[in-house]
């Protein structure tokens, strides 16, 4: 039994996800919305790794594990980012990118 879905279709979906994320990253000002866009991009990349692994190199597993570690690192990144956002909120009472243009201060 063949897998009927063509590899291109997966890639098109991940491209849409990726550029939605880019668009959101540029237009949003809320830090949490920004983080949502970042997650979209990350997932698009993970899908690409898995799909390429599965279709182009079916005997290997590197793409699969790369996605796995990517998920773990995304979790870590989110945890730290949210901690920072909460700290920012505590200092300036809102979480907009315009508020955090200084490195120190």
């Amino acid at each position, binding site marked *: 039994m063949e897998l009927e879905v063509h590899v291109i279709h997966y890639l098109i979906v991940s491209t849409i996800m990726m550029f939605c994320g*880019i668009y959101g*990253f*540029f237009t949003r000002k809320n830090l949490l919305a920004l983080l949502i866009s970042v997650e979209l991009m990350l997932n698009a990349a993970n899908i690409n790794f898995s799909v390429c692994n599965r279709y182009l190199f079916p005997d290997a597993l590197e793409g699969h594990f790369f996605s796995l570690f990517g998920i773990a690192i995304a979790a870590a990144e989110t945890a730290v980012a949210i901690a920072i956002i909460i700290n920012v909120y505590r200092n300036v009472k809102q979480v907009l*990118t*315009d508020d*955090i*243009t*200084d*490195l120190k201060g």
Partner: protein
Amino acid sequence: MDYTILILVLPMLSFLILALAGMKMSHRVSGLIGTLSLGAVTVLSYLTAFVYFTAERTAEGVHSSMIPLNFEWLPFTNQLHIDMGILLDPISVLMLVVISTVSFMVHIYSFGYMKGEIGFQRYYAFLSLFTFSMLGLVVATNIFQMYVFWELVGVSSYLLIGFYYTKPEAIAASKKAFIVTRFADLGFLIGILIYGYYMKTFTFTPSEEQLMQAGMMLPWALGLMFIGGAGKSAMFPLHIWLPDAMEGPTPVSALIHAATMVVAGVYLVARMFPLFIAYAPQTLHIVAYVGMFTAFYAASVACVQSDIKRVLAFSTISQIGFMMVALGVCTGTNPHDTGLGYMAGMFHLFTHAMFKALLFLGAGCIIHAVHSNEMNTMGGLRKYMPITHITFLIACLAIAGIPPFSGFFSKDEILTACFNFSPFVGWGMTIIAGMTAFYMFRLYYGIFWGKENKELHAEHVPHESPLTMTFPLMFLALVTICAGFIPFGHFVTSNGELYDIHLNWVVAGTSIVVAIAAIALATWMYAREEQPVPAMLARRFSKLHRAAYKRFYMDELWLFVTKKIIFRCVSAPLAWFDRHVIDQFMNFMAWSTNAAGEEVQPLQNGRIQSYTMWFFGGVIVLSIMLLLI
């Protein structure tokens, strides 16, 4: 002969100790350190000389050169490298003896002379440094080592002239000495570089093949080296620094500016003598004429100076001129006729060092007694300072060329060599020798006889100096009396062969007659209380007198050349160019960097989204470019 290294190491060590820890020591301890190390150096030098000259002569009947120590210091190519080492040959051993003797005497003398001065330890440190450098200069195994020590000698001379650094005159004099000699050393350095380039070596004995190839460049190199020597040895017109250098302490003048450093130029010419004779005899004759003119010029200026140290300074210049003439009139290397001048010049260097150091140290005693350099504050001092008087008289007789004092013998050899060369030079030098006798006795009578400055002496009675100061005087006087009988030709001659000094009675007789006549003239003019003749002469020839007193306006001429011509025509445009073109260019660079920074700065606004937008735009542009290619 391994102990010869100690001759260099001891003064260096003493300099280091005194310079680093001297201020913590008492005057007595620091002086003792310097003097004792110098005493050891003197003993070692005498030992070296004894061992060297009593060693067997070679088959050709000469004292062979020895190199007890030599190491490669800076290699440029396989052949061309700068070495450091010790070379012993007759003239370097002779110089070792001269330098260590005079330096030792000056060290002892300074105990009394510098007593209680501020910076006593510094003084001894510099004396040690000077002695080290001078010894290193004379034992140099190659021309570059000589140059290194040559400059060290210049530095220590600068430091010692400017010893009283709170006196503006002393500062000016030290700067003048340094700059003038540095200016001359430029010639020396260029000469060394030409020499090294064509000879492929810095040693004093290049290979025949290279000498042949060098052709006309060797006389040029030697001539340029002589310019350096002329600067150090105060040859006309580079002599202007030496009279001013008398601002330093008097023992320093005795050591550096009379006996040792100023004869470095003579030593340099003597060191290069084999090359001069064989490949550049014309250059050697230029040396002779420069020396003769300098001798005459300095003698005529010395006749009218009133500052006793200035008189002695010009006398030094004149006597170095004698040595240069002696070297310059050589036309061959046979010591019995054409090469006699070499031995005569070195002999005169030796005797002159002794009696001129004696004169300066005596002058130091006098200055110590009356606290002034001017002759009109003296007069009639013979009653107060008997030892100084007698020793000073001995030195005056020696420099005037009266037998049996040492100066007579060496000067007679010089005159004989000059007559061998040409009657003009011979008679010229005889007349200058007469002038020497005249101005020295003018000085002698002005100090010890003549009109006594009674008011001043009543107020402050001149007294004889302590033993630390009179002992060197007596010792040097003894040397001055005896040195003429040293069989000098057995030690130093132009080609190393044995030569017995014998007097040419025609020449010697003439010079004795001229000297006695000059002394008689000086006695007639200056010995009495009333001195109508000099005053009348000064009135009659007021312009000449004034010009001579002003040293024939040489300093003013130099000032005109440097200030009016070089500063105005070369330095000022260069300064303008520097300020308006180079500086402005630099300012433009700084301004444009700043402006570019101001322009770029708004991009760094801290908004992460704008950064990523630029990044993303760049990625897109790059991708499109990659696709299109």
